[in-house]
């Protein structure tokens, strides 16, 4: 018999969203945070750029501008009430982080320093505005550390290295989760009144990704299996500049400083695709351009990468050609030392992983799968909703990258994700604690952990004909190629076929490790099961949406189609079949118009 | 503006304890030993040891310019070494080096003996050792 624990609120995941939820929930209810990693290992720690809020510490800025930028960035698919809510809460959220001790960088006056970021503008002049509050180039790291520290201070209960395998529903309400303790292989049942999922994204279904190994979509897949829908799964953000093959992120800042993209023929190609802003076009546009070049055979050596050139002489040459000027009107030039000073981390990554010194050599880059816009549908209080009328599932909450509020719509603006974590993490925590105060305990069945147990047993008892590692590799490859940056019907149909075939083959997997202690092979196989499930839904939703919008670009439907497709997708996956329905987009102030930067 | 943090924490609020006190004492005694040893060697040279340089002798003068030590060396005239000044130099060096050395042994023991009981024993033993070594040394310096 598994061990049983009882908490009012259970938070699954200890990234920025989970910790924030845990912190707030624990103020009003007995709370535990369960995470398959030590909390400080969560992927929030990888975020570099910053967290947006209209603090106006350098120049005038307003939450309304932030709201409009986000709506526009989302290609009008974001729900405007939620976006407005988030952007209004942003200032308080960032200040609260500062009050918790987060070491933001400072302005000369001692205030929180802010930097410009793609898509964030002064709505009156159209010029970039400094909105991203930052702590060097490790803002996410500092948020993660600070929140974890606050949780320790407030004595939040942690179950570190416990992987949640199943969600328990009794009488149509959340009743807890089942998790495996990695160190012993024992199953634990967590009986709870409210459950908050904050398990992060699923970028690992793609071959080249900036995401962590643990981004396998566990939370989303678990709920999907229980007959709950996922929202907007076709929208996935590809960041244009990832290190070739490794996918490690190279920030937009490189191009901001004047770096340019060069194809295999040695030509600068962005002017073809974005004549005015060129290399500084938005993420989806640049990713598409790179991929078009590669498909046209203009990749370097016929391979699927191009160059990012940040050598001072190149920067200066093109800056002169473009007539780029400094603020004081003199021509823009840069030296090697200045590049080093402005981009230390990127240079470190390149030196470590490529053995390339960006000051004297070009960097091989290719678009990398970066951010999950879709996910578990919630309202702006983090409550999970399960249909087009936004019916709330009692006791179930979600926040962070695994959730879809939706504030990012079809394309997320940089720095809005960290904001999303703290704002909606907090509200999910508050709501869950409030709910737990009034809700009754649901009686757990005696065999609460049967589902988790049988899922693992299946992996232990497969015929052993198939190797899980092969399946993983094939899935990632087909998803990246056919459900990646450019999508078309033929490719996606083939991908769906392939994923279904892989799912069949997956049934024959048998893990070699029969042990209980840290059986990582078993859990990796279980995660593969989740990824296959998610991959299929992603591919089917993508095939279903016959338009191009934000991160979703169809070659066969290259235009945005507001008439037919200004709506969210809800996808259910039961009995091996995906069913799609739609949910209207909430539009308050801003009517959709063409998106030009 | 918020309350400024004190620039210097008061003595009882800065974590100063036996270990940290001895930590700084170890460094200060190290410097003191350098000073005393140089004094002793320079003194020996002034007092005519120039021609009888011998490595072992330098050590003897350096670390313990007491009578028996000097007796074993080729210094022409022993008398100057018996002055209170040189006896004091020798005594200081003795006390400083003993404190330094004995605490060094305690520091090493602290790495391996971690139970509070074990540590108490080590400290008691070290105090006994320090006092007895110092007394023996002083006896040798001043009496013989």
């Amino acid at each position, binding site marked *: 018999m598994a061990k049983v624990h009882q908490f009012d609120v259970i938070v699954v995941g200890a990234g920025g969203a989970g910790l924030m939820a845990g912190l707030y929930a624990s103020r009003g209810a007995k709370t535990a945070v369960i995470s398959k990693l030590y909390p400080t290992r969560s992927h929030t720690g990888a975020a570099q750029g910053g967290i947006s809020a209209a603090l106006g510490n350098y120049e005038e800025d307003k939450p309304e501008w932030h709201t409009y930028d986000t709506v526009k960035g989302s290609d009008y698919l974001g729900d405007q009430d939620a976006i407005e809510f988030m952007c209004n809460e942003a200032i308080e959220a960032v200040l609260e982080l500062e009050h918790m001790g987060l070491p933001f960088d400072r302005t000369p006056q001692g205030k929180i320093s802010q930097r410009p970021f793609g898509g964030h503008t002064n709505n009156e002049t159209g010029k970039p505005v400094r909105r991203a509050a930052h702590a060097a180039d490790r803002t996410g790291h500092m948020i993660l550390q600070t929140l974890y520290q606050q949780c320790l201070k407030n004595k939040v209960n942690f179950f570190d290295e416990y992987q949640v395998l199943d969600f328990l529903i009794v009488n149509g309400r959340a009743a807890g989760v089942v998790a495996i303790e990695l160190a012993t292989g024992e199953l634990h049942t967590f009986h709870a009144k409210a459950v908050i999922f904050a398990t992060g994204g699923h970028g690992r279904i793609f071959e080249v990704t900036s995401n962590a190994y643990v981004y396998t979509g566990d939370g989303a897949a678990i709920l999907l299996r229980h007959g709950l829908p996922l929202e907007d799964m076709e929208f996935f953000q590809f960041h244009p500049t990832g290190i070739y093959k490794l996918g490690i992120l190279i920030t937009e800042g490189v191009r901001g400083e004047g770096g340019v993209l060069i194809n295999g023929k040695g030509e600068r190609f962005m002017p073809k695709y974005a004549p005015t802003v060129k290399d500084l076009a938005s993420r989806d546009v640049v990713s598409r351009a790179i991929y078009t070049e590669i498909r046209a055979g203009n990749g370097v050596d016929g391979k699927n990468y191009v160059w990012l050139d940040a050598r001072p002489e190149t920067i200066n040459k093109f800056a002169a050609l473009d007539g780029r000027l400094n603020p004081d009107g003199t021509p823009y030039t840069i030296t090697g030392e200045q590049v080093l000073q402005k981009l230390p981390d990127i240079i470190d990554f390149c030196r470590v992983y490529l053995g390339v010194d960006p000051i004297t050599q070009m960097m091989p880059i290719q678009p990398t799968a970066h951010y999950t816009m879709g996910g578990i549908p919630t309202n702006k209080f983090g409550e999970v909703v399960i249909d087009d009328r936004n019916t709330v599932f009692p006791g179930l909450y979600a926040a962070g990258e695994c959730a879809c509020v939706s504030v990012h719509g079809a394309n997320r603006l940089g720095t809005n994700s960290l904001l999303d974590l703290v704002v909606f993490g907090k509200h999910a925590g508050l709501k869950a604690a409030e709910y737990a105060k009034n809700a009754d305990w649901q009686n757990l069945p005696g065999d609460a952990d049967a589902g988790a147990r049988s899922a693992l047993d299946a992996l232990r008892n497969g015929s052993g004909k198939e190797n899980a590692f092969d399946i993983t590799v094939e899935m990632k490859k087909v998803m990246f190629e056919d459900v990646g940056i450019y999508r078309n019907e033929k490719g996606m149909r083939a991908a769906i076929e392939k994923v279904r075939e892989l799912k069949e083959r997956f049934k024959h997997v048998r893990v070699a490790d029969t042990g209980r202690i840290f059986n990582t092979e078993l859990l990796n196989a279980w995660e593969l099961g989740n990824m296959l499930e998610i991959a299929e839904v992603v591919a089917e939703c993508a095939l279903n949406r016959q338009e191009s919008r934000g991160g979703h670009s169809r070659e066969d439907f290259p235009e945005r189609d507001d008439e037919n497709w200004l709506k969210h997708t809800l996808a259910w996956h039961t009995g091996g079949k995906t069913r799609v329905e739609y949910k209207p987009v909430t539009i308050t102030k801003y009517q959709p118009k063409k998106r030009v930067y | 503006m918020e309350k400024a943090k004190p620039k210097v924490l008061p003595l009882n609020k800065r974590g100063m304890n036996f270990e940290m006190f001895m930590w700084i004492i170890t460094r200060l005694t190290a410097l003191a030993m*350098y000073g005393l040893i140089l004094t002793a060697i320079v003194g020996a040279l002034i007092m005519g040891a120039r021609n009888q340089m011998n*490595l072992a002798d330098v050590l003897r003068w350096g670390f313990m310019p007491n009578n028996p030590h000097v007796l074993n060396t080729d210094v022409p005239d022993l008398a100057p070494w018996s002055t209170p000044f040189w006896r004091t130099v020798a005594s200081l060096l003795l006390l400083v080096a003993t404190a330094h*050395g004995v605490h*060094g042994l305690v520091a*090493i023991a602290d790495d391996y003996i971690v139970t509070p009981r074990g540590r108490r024993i080590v400290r008691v033993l070290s105090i006994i050792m320090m006092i007895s*070594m110092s007394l*023996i040394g002083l006896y*040798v310096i001043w009496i013989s």
Partner: protein
Amino acid sequence: MGLTRNVSLATALRYKGQGPMWAYILHRVGGLGMATFITIHILASFIGGNVGGFFNDVYQNWAFQVFIFFCVLFHAINGLRITILDLFPKLIPHLREAIWVEMAVFVPLYLLTVYVIVSTALGG
């Protein structure tokens, strides 16, 4: 469950620490060596007689001298380096360079010492 902490002396010495780690080990050896020597020496000369005589013979042995001079020289020079860096933590990033400087002082001095000791021993 689990294996012990897995740090035998052999494992510890296999760790690829560099100059600073070896300086730490040798400093400890030197300190211990001197402390043991001085303790025995004082006790022996206090007791005197046969025992004292025996230890005196040991001191005369050139191999012992090579060892104890190492302890003294290394500990003293390295100790000065430690003291300076500890009192001025801003210098600690240059710790490895400091060890090179220290070596530049220690090695010639010690080689000279060994030469003198050995040639005295051989020359009678």
